[in-house]
């Protein structure tokens, strides 16, 4: 059985991300230097269109970087085989699978595909991992329901359970709270905290929930005007970076209440 390495060494240096076009590449962000070496809850925040999702997708290996170095545990991204990479990072994306007849259990079981044989047969340890994932996300009682019949919040939990079943040290989530109300968003963040603290995962997510991120994330990566500020959440807040980036004529960030308020 593959025990996840709890210690990970995640480094990017001078990474440049964006979209290659025929004539010249469209650079979204450049000179990105990130480093993670212990289980943390990391929130990538920034205004619409600054490149949060592009950064996450690049780090998740779903699109190639334009240039620079990106290594996990001393090995460059391009040196990983697809399967090795799939055992390092699991993802939860905004596009939720639709139009299928899978049950919740089958959906979560997809996480084990990285480890199963060509007939996708489950060993005892596979079944254990699936059960664990269902229990951690509190969807065990849904396991025989059809995925298509669930609510948005439940589906999101199933997709997170699928990522958990993939048994990777790193989980990356693109806007995991986007369709959820404040109650469910809070629940998600608490779940992410638990994954970091109890299950030693590194969780990296993009979000527009600045308030929740400031209160619950360990580290913030704030993207603004082509630059990334990375630091412990406390430092970011104390250095007034949140205010610099997000304050407008209408709202401002209050450091005492850790929330936005109308001017």
């Amino acid at each position, binding site marked *: 059985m593959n025990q996840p390495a709890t210690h990970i060494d995640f480094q990017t240096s001078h990474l440049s991300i964006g979209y290659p076009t025929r004539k010249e590449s469209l650079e979204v962000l450049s000179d990105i230097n990130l480093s993670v070496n212990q289980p943390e809850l990391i929130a990538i925040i920034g205004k619409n269109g600054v490149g949060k999702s592009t950064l996450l997708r690049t780090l998740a290996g779903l699109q190639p970087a334009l240039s620079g170095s990106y290594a996990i545990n001393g090995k460059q991204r391009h040196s990983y085989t697809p399967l090795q990479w799939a*055992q390092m990072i699991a993802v939860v994306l905004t596009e939720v699978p639709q139009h299928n007849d899978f049950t919740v259990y089958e959906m979560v079981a997809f*996480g084990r*595909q990285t480890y199963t044989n060509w007939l996708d047969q489950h060993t005892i340890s596979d079944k254990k991992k699936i059960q664990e994932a269902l229990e951690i996300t509190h969807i065990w009682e849904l396991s025989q329901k059809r995925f*298509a019949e669930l609510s948005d919040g439940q589906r999101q939990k199933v997709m997170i359970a699928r990522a958990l079943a993939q048994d990777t040290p790193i989980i990356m989530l693109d806007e995991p709270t986007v369709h959820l109300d404040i109650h469910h968003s809070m629940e998600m963040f608490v779940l992410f905290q638990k994954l970091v603290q109890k299950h030693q995962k590194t969780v990296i997510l993009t979000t527009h929930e600045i308030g929740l991120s400031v209160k619950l994330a360990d580290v913030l990566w704030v993207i603004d005007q082509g630059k990334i500020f990375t630091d412990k959440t406390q430092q970011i807040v104390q250095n007034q970076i949140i205010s610099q980036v997000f304050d407008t004529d209408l709202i401002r960030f209050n450091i005492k209440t850790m929330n936005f308020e109308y001017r």
Partner: protein
Amino acid sequence: MSPVPKKYRLHFILLIVMFFMMWLVNISVGSVAIPIGETFKFLLHQNLENDTWQTILEGLRFPKSLTVIVVGMGLSVSGLLMQTLFRNPMAGPSVLGISSGASLGVAFFLMGSSWWGISNAGWGMQMSIVLSAIVGALGVLGLILILSYKIKNTLSILIIGLMLSALTSSVISVLSYFTTSQKLQQYIFWGFGNVSNLTYNELAFLYTSVGIGLFIVLFFLKPLNSLLLGENLAQSMGVNIRFTQNTILIIVGVIVGILTAFVGPIAFIGLAVPHIARLIFKTSNHMILFPAVILLGSIVMLICDTLSQLPFSEQVIPINAVTSLIGAPLVILLILKQKNYSI
């Protein structure tokens, strides 16, 4: 997702029983009705007392039924693969113009053969038809795949498929205008779709090639399941997307090309059978759907062929007419309930 969970075992046993029943019925029915008991004897390699029956079964109906079965399996699996690949419930060899592509290839070869001066006989001729059908099918398939990267809308792809079909048929019309009447006749007869007249040698070739294709698909059932979650998630789970897509595409192109070359374009089977399988098994799991579609494809084609013999009469209608009668209403039904379809 272990292969064939217990709850599906009864389904499969029933389908297998049904398959053999339909096969028997298919062989018994025709302008000369042969008692089912006698056909059963024939299948068990016993000699029949009635020599005429023996000749009819051995020389005509048995090879025809074998053709029908391999066509049903091949086209249905192609339909399943295309629906998954395009994540489109309306995908199928005939609907997306893949069969038309194959027809165009054959039309170019048959009607243009006077220009490139190929003699009109023998195994080499048959192989050239096969090759041109494969090239035509793969051409359209590749084109549709490229377009489906740009257009995500299910119905738009369907319309493009219809336009491609229209385009190929008009090109074929232009070709037929410039060709000799003899060549045109040759092409038109091919186009009717004909599952009889295949020799045992040709059948061996069909079964080998379709068999190899289906065998390779076995190793792609797991990645095909992941593809249903979307390309990004599949990639994140370690699936080599391009390799999977290209291999499946080539297999579909070759299977549809070869089958179309030998029996002509057959409509709707590839589209309809995967949906029937999903209705019965209520799953999207390819580990279940793949064997189910193989069985159901053979059964449905056997039924269609039996119906086309117009039991108790001496008339025969083209099998294409029967498959369309079943398939076309199904497409309309699918469009009507677009919102909650599954693939």
